[in-house]
């Protein structure tokens, strides 16, 4: 019988830093196979939330469960089933793409390493680049390599922090299409922090909006647009960021 447990369950999560509160008691659950957008301005707490889900940052209080396991207590039961991609985390520049992917394949215990690298290279159009140093690639090519690294272990949970930042529209669209295919084919769960509203609108089944460390709204893109009376998520985002959305939020059924 398939598990009914959420892929990611966050409960009363709090993170205090000496300079202030980054995340202030947020809770949400993400069903397996869904794509969730985490939206918010700079300093809203999105990156800290994702970092706590990955176990990179220890919560002050609250809990995170991934695929039924407690993070960080049971981190080694789940880390090989999840992965992460961000343009702000890079891979060694001097190593070739193949070497980098090979190292991560070993770290994640991928059985048929060479076959998996060849498969990803084919899917992400990296075959020609496999033996080039990663540092010599363009921003778009590096993003595809980072994506290949994030998919090397065919993760059930994929966390993405602004995956298309600084990419041209064509490459960004290409990356989004690939992510859509991946989650559909593997029934993977994806949590995506982004500032790109059209990206979130296109990819996400549900959007969690954060502001100053708290969740201020949580709904499907269509329902958010209807409730705020807006044509796109960017306008909804601005309503939330500028405090104009109180009436819409109070209208939550």
């Amino acid at each position: 019988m398939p598990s009914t447990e959420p892929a990611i369950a966050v409960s009363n999560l709090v993170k205090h830093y000496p300079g202030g509160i980054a995340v202030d008691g947020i809770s949400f659950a993400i069903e397996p196979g869904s794509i969730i957008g985490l939206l918010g301005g700079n300093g809203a707490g999105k990156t800290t939330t994702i970092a706590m889900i990955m176990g990179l940052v220890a919560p002050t209080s609250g809990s995170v469960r991934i695929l039924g396991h407690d993070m960080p207590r049971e981190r080694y039961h789940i880390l090989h089933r999840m992965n992460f991609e961000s343009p702000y985390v890079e891979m060694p520049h001097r190593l070739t793409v193949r070497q980098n992917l090979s190292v991560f394949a070993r770290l994640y215990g991928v059985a048929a390493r060479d076959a998996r690298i060849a498969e990803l290279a084919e899917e992400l159009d990296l075959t020609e680049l496999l033996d080039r140093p990663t540092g010599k690639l363009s921003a778009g090519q590096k993003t595809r390599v980072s994506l290949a690294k994030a998919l090397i272990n065919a993760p059930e949970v994929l966390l993405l922090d602004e995956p298309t930042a600084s990419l041209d529209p064509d490459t960004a669209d290409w990356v989004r299409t690939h992510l859509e295919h991946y989650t559909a084919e593997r029934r993977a769960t994806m949590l995506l922090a982004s500032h790109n509203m059209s990206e979130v609108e296109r990819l996400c089944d549900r959007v969690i909006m954060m502001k100053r460390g708290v969740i201020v709204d949580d709904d499907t893109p269509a329902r958010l647009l209807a409730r705020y009376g807006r044509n796109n998520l960017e306008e909804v985002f601005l309503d939330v960021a500028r405090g104009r959305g109180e009436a819409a939020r109070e209208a939550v059924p």
Partner: protein
Amino acid sequence: MVARYWYLLRSSWPRVFDLIYWPTVQMFMWGFLQTYIGQFGGLPARVGQTFIGAVMLWDILFRGQLGFSISFLEEMYSRNLANLLISPLKPAEFISALMIMSIIRLSIGIVPVSLLAIVFFGFNLWALGLALAAFFLNLILTSWALGIFIAGLLLRHGLGAENMAWTLMFIFLPLTCVYYPVSVLPPWLAMISWMLPPTYVFEGMRALLTAHVFRGDLMVQAFAINIALIALAIFAFLKYLQAARRHGSLLQGSE
């Protein structure tokens, strides 16, 4: 992880050159000084005959720690640390890889230099045999203990602590009496000196090269202190890792 560091080393000849360059320069400098002092005979010559051995053992200690720390720093320079820390790589596996790399990097530097010492100064490090194995074991353990401690500092404080990786070991140079016996230190400093395992190694080396006596007792004492140091270093590393997770330092990785 060892494969990752090996790929990196292989891809960059300046990195390999750097491993050999400074140990060679040091060996020649101290070798010629030893030759010069040897011409005077008597006590100065006896003191001088340990210089090449001392500098080569010092290099095992210093380069062992540097090899460990530089491999760790490579992850910070390439902003790859977060990728590793969210992977299933365990701290013990990470530390083991850094230890293995420290031996590989050290071997690349010390083996050619030891051969040059035979050719130019007739000093055969390998002829020390079992004693060399005991010296090496104790020195590499101390270098790893310091390397593990510095890796913890880097996790917690980011590249702001980078200078510690390059300079912390130098406090051992005067304290562990690399070029002179412990007896020249004032008693209070000698007490501190005897708390450090390399002191036992350098005293043991002088006993072997000047009196031709292998002091196994010194090696056993050094080993016992090393075990305590390694345990302390691992404890500190894990505490720093916890603190880094609490303070969010692993997200920043830089200053």
